[in-house]
């Protein structure tokens, strides 16, 4: 075996070559670390520009009158009273429909469902529904709620539409929250002779409630900003009256008068103002958008905070 002996100069030369390669590779590393940060900044800057732009344009317009006035043909007199009241009422219907249904479905899939083709179909279905564009839900609601069931363009139709839309979000987060509960809780309950329902009611649902709440909030934050499906069912854009206050009419039928009332919601009001040619209405749109943005940011922020604290607090 022949040995190549190197003199000192050759060793130094090769070392220098190797160091050069290393330095080049490390430069790439640094470059990419910066590139990543810059990419993230693109997102952050867009978010900042978006909020700042709307704040600058819209904030001067926001005062008490803006919240207590109906929309008007004169931009300076127009307000969002019917819009925010409508949003709250629609959200009420959405929550009442989506939360029980979503939690029940999530509990079934985690605690009851046998491993068979039927469960598989349900699971694939839910994944699929999460990917259906929101406007398709609008078409479904138009055909089903508005015309087949005869609910018309009412708060009920809109609330149910949005409930269907956020159902997958609620189901998925319920399942994730339940899955985080360790198996030993179930074993202990069954060991004491509890039935599945007793286990679910007394342990599974209470322990996962914070996680479920996070999912519900994220779902509601999404529903509050949804515009397309509500436009599709034919919501009116100019509403200058309020529906009767919930649960105040003559019982029993009068209690639910409000659900059949025509309505408008925040994003629709904003869309309506955005699509007008007069510049004054764009200011109104910015103001309404800023408030809508604030609502969703607060809801999303609450969900993030809740999840963060949950993770820190629970030690099984």
């Amino acid at each position: 075996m022949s040995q190549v002996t190197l003199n000192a100069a050759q060793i130094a030369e090769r070392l220098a070559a190797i160091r050069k390669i290393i330095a080049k590779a490390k430069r790439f590393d640094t470059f990419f670390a910066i590139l990543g940060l810059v990419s993230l900044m693109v997102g952050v800057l867009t978010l900042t520009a978006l909020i700042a732009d709307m704040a600058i344009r819209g904030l001067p317009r926001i005062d008490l009158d803006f919240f207590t006035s109906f929309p008007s043909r004169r931009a300076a007199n127009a307000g969002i009273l019917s819009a925010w009241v409508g949003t709250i009422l629609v959200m009420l219907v959405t929550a009442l429909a989506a939360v029980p249904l979503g939690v029940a479905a999530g509990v079934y899939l985690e605690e009851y469902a046998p491993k068979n083709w039927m469960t598989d179909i349900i699971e694939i279905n839910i994944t699929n529904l999460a990917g259906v564009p929101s406007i398709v839900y609008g078409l479904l609601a138009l055909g089903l709620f508005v015309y087949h069931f005869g609910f018309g363009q009412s708060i009920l139709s809109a609330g149910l539409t949005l409930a269907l839309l956020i159902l997958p979000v609620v189901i998925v987060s319920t399942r994730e929250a339940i899955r985080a509960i360790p198996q030993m809780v179930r074993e202990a309950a069954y060991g004491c002779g509890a039935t599945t329902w007793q286990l679910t009611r007394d342990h599974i649902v209470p322990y996962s409630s914070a996680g479920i709440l996070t999912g519900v909030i994220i779902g509601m934050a999404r529903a509050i900003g949804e515009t397309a499906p509500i436009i599709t069912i034919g919501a009116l854009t100019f509403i200058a009256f309020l529906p009767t206050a919930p649960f105040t009419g003559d019982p029993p039928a009068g209690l639910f008068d409000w659900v059949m009332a025509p309505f408008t919601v925040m994003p629709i009001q904003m869309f309506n103002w955005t699509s007008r040619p007069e510049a004054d209405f764009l200011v109104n749109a910015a103001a309404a958008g800023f408030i809508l943005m604030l609502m969703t940011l607060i809801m999303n922020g609450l969900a993030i905070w809740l999840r963060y604290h949950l993770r820190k607090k629970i030690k099984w």
Partner: protein
Amino acid sequence: MAPGTQVSARLKKNPLRHGKERIIEGILFSAAAFSVFVTAAIVYILLSESWVFFQTVPLRDFLFDTQWTPLFDDAHYGIMVLLSGTITSTAVALLVAIPFGTIIAIWLSEFAGFKTREIAKPVLELLGGVPTIIYGYFALIFVTPLLQKIWPDLPGFNLLSAGLVMGVMIIPYIASISEDAMRAVPMSLREGSYAMGATRFQTAIRVVMPAATSGIASAYILGISRAAGETMILAVAAGMQPNLTFDPSEPGATITSYIVQVALGDLPHGSIGYQTIFAAGLALLTMTLTFNMLGYWLRKRFREVY
């Protein structure tokens, strides 16, 4: 009486308790099965309402006509026109979302420390949670005038600014799914790569990304389906004139913005003009469903690898 019987009598199935359990299980099952009903209802409504439409308009015209003028006397129903708007805006959005989304995903999964990730992920989540109507307003009022400074000929409504903003909207979506895929790559592969003297960047590009290919591909595909189904940004910022073009600097209508346009108008239910929105919706659903299925299948595959 034998000593054992009393105990076994207590352990006997209690019909009341058992019956209640079964009833509750049935109720919970029907809640879960409701999702199947929703899917069935979507398909049924779209098919039955489109059926009315396709009895007047032959499928061949729907697919191959190059004009979309359902509201004129000389009505043409060529879905291709709306499809071109959808494809153009989706392409612009992906040109923004795929590079940025992928870089952010690599950065979050391979470069960022725990603390940075804890801050960056919620910010991305907030970005994804902004209502699309607000993005639409932003595209129309902020991005378009900005682009017009560089490019004075750009019309006030155009697919470009709508597509760009839509791209930013999809970044968090692509980033989070790709990051999940990359983090699912086992640590041992990275350790092997580092042991061979590779840098983080080399490891990320040559080891982690190839191992997570199917997951990343599924993120892109789900991004496409998300972009194709996006409505309000396009309805606000891209104008609503049907326009057979693949040039993003022109205004155009997409399948989704056309549906909004008709819903805002005062066409009577049952007229052929009105029924077009269900046919358009059916085309959209077919498209997004295909992409979703493909994405779902790819994601399932990468999960099973390790």
